Each structure stands twice: as C-alpha cells, then as structure tokens.
C-alpha cells in the first residue's frame, strides 16, 4: 500500500480546513442531499464528502457507511487531493497503490473509486466528493462532468461556510 505524499501546501491546506470550523460538526441537509443525489445518479452504494485532516479523513456526509472517519494513511482521498482532476480508480485491486489497502481488502471492499477534489479559491484541496462501488467500473465523459458539477456544488457550500465564518 502506498501512503499518499503530503501536499506541498499542507500547512495552508490544514489552516483553511480548520478555519471552516466544520470538522466533527453534525450532518447537514445541504451536504447530505448532494451525497444522496450522487448515490442515486451514479447508482453506487457508497458516496462520501470527505475532509482530509492532519491524521484522518472525516466524512461531512456519507451514504452507505456507518463510520465517520478513517486514518489518513489508508485514505484514497489523500491521493485524490494531490491533483485538480478527478481521480478515477476503475479497480482498486488491480492498482498497486491500493491493492493491499485495508479499505480495499476489508469489509468496505472498495473496487471502484472516483474522487473529485474540493478545491478552494486559495488553491488548497480540502477533501473530495467521492463515489465508491464494490465492483469495477468506469465513468464516461458525461458522468465525469456530472461528478464535477456536484463537486462544485459542495465547494459552493464550503465557500458559504467560509464566508459565514468571516474568511471570505
């Protein structure tokens, strides 16, 4: 298993994340409805809105899982936040970065993963809107566009949160 490298702007990224005052807050309809919409739209069993903290990834919204966080070392989203583009893993068991990851080999049984990074205006990527399936699959161009739009809607909500906190 490959642990994702730390982004170059990690200090700024964590500062922006913590300034949102959103970690460990209760579920909110505005994020939940986007996650539910994505699960229905893409017909996937698991959708997460993740925020990658210093040592963990925490789920602001989730469909299909009971847990609210995992360690950052096993997080696929920690890889996704390294780039602006959506990261698609058609079959994690065939990907040397993830084949022996416990999220892949364990109960969650991730095979397919698509993570759209939540990029803020200041250039940091706080987490992802990600789709997870327990069977291999891919996304076509139209589906990537839809996932990108849903990600943009999550980012708008986060920016609204930042504005409400006086960080706009």
């Amino acid at each position, binding site marked *: 298993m490959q642990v994702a490298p730390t982004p170059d702007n990690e200090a700024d990224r964590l500062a922006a994340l913590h300034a949102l005052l959103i970690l460990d807050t209760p579920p909110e309809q505005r994020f939940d409805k986007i996650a539910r*919409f994505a699960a229905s739209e893409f017909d996937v069993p698991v959708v997460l809105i993740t925020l990658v903290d210093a040592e963990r990834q925490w789920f602001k919204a989730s469909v299909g899982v009971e847990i609210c966080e995992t360690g950052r070392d096993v997080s696929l989203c920690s890889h996704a936040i390294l780039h602006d583009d959506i990261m698609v893993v058609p079959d994690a068991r065939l990907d040397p970065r993830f084949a022996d990851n416990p999220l892949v080999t364990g109960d969650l049984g991730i095979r397919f993963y698509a993570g759209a990074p939540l990029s803020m205006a200041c250039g940091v990527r706080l987490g992802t809107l990600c789709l997870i399936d327990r069977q291999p699959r891919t996304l076509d161009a139209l589906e990537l566009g*839809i996932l990108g739009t849903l990600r943009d809607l999550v980012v708008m909500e986060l920016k609204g949160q930042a504005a409400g906190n006086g960080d706009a």
Partner: protein
Amino acid sequence: MPETMHILLVEPETLLRRTVSMTARSLGMSQVHEAASTDVALRMARQRTFHGAVIAVECVGSGAGRRYDLGLIDELRAAESETGRPMPIAILADQATPTLLAELRERRISRVILKPFRAKVLLETIAGFGGQKGARNEP
C-alpha cells in the same frame, strides 16, 4: 462558431435542475435556462425562443378529473406556429399512462422520461436535441 443551443428546463427539484444546467454549460453542450415551475417557464418562453425543452409535467385536479397539466407545451407549440420552427420537447413524468401518451403524441413530444430522473439521461436528451436541430436545418 456554431450557434449556442438554448434549452428550457422545467423541473421543480433544484439539485437535479442545477446539476443539468451547470454540467451542460461546463461541457459546452448548451445554455440551459432553468425554471422551477410552469408559471416561471411561461414567462421565460414569452421573452425568448428556445431550441428545445425538457419539461416535468405534474398532475392537476383530483378524482376523475385528475390529469397532467400540458398547458406549457400547448403554449410553446402555439408560439412555434408563429415562428414556423418546431422545437423538440421531452417530458418528465411519474408514469406513462395511455391517456398521457395519446396527448403527448398529439403534441409531437419527442421523448418521455420516467422516474427516477437522472441528470445523465436529461443531458443525453438535450444532446440529442442538437442532432434533431441540425437535421432540420439541413436542406
């Protein structure tokens, strides 16, 4: 430069409507004009012409008088008769009853989309409007 397709989308569910319009714009497919209700759509239709429309139709009335409200479609078709440019219209409906299908055939509806409504299906429908529009413009 190809002409930008202007599409009218009438759908009460904000997230579906917004996802379709934003994705269509980001992919350079068309300019989707959003209306949350028939009343809003009627006002928009009176202000500009569209190359196509995707319209969620809702039941009105009760009991034996319960029927789908197709007034917006009638108004759009009436406006077409003035311009002489028929436009493709797709319908979103809970179910396709024989009565509804007959009424839609009379109104030259090109597609009926049944629940669950997915953004991808709506976007594919809108993309198909481009083909219909191009076909009509060919001599």
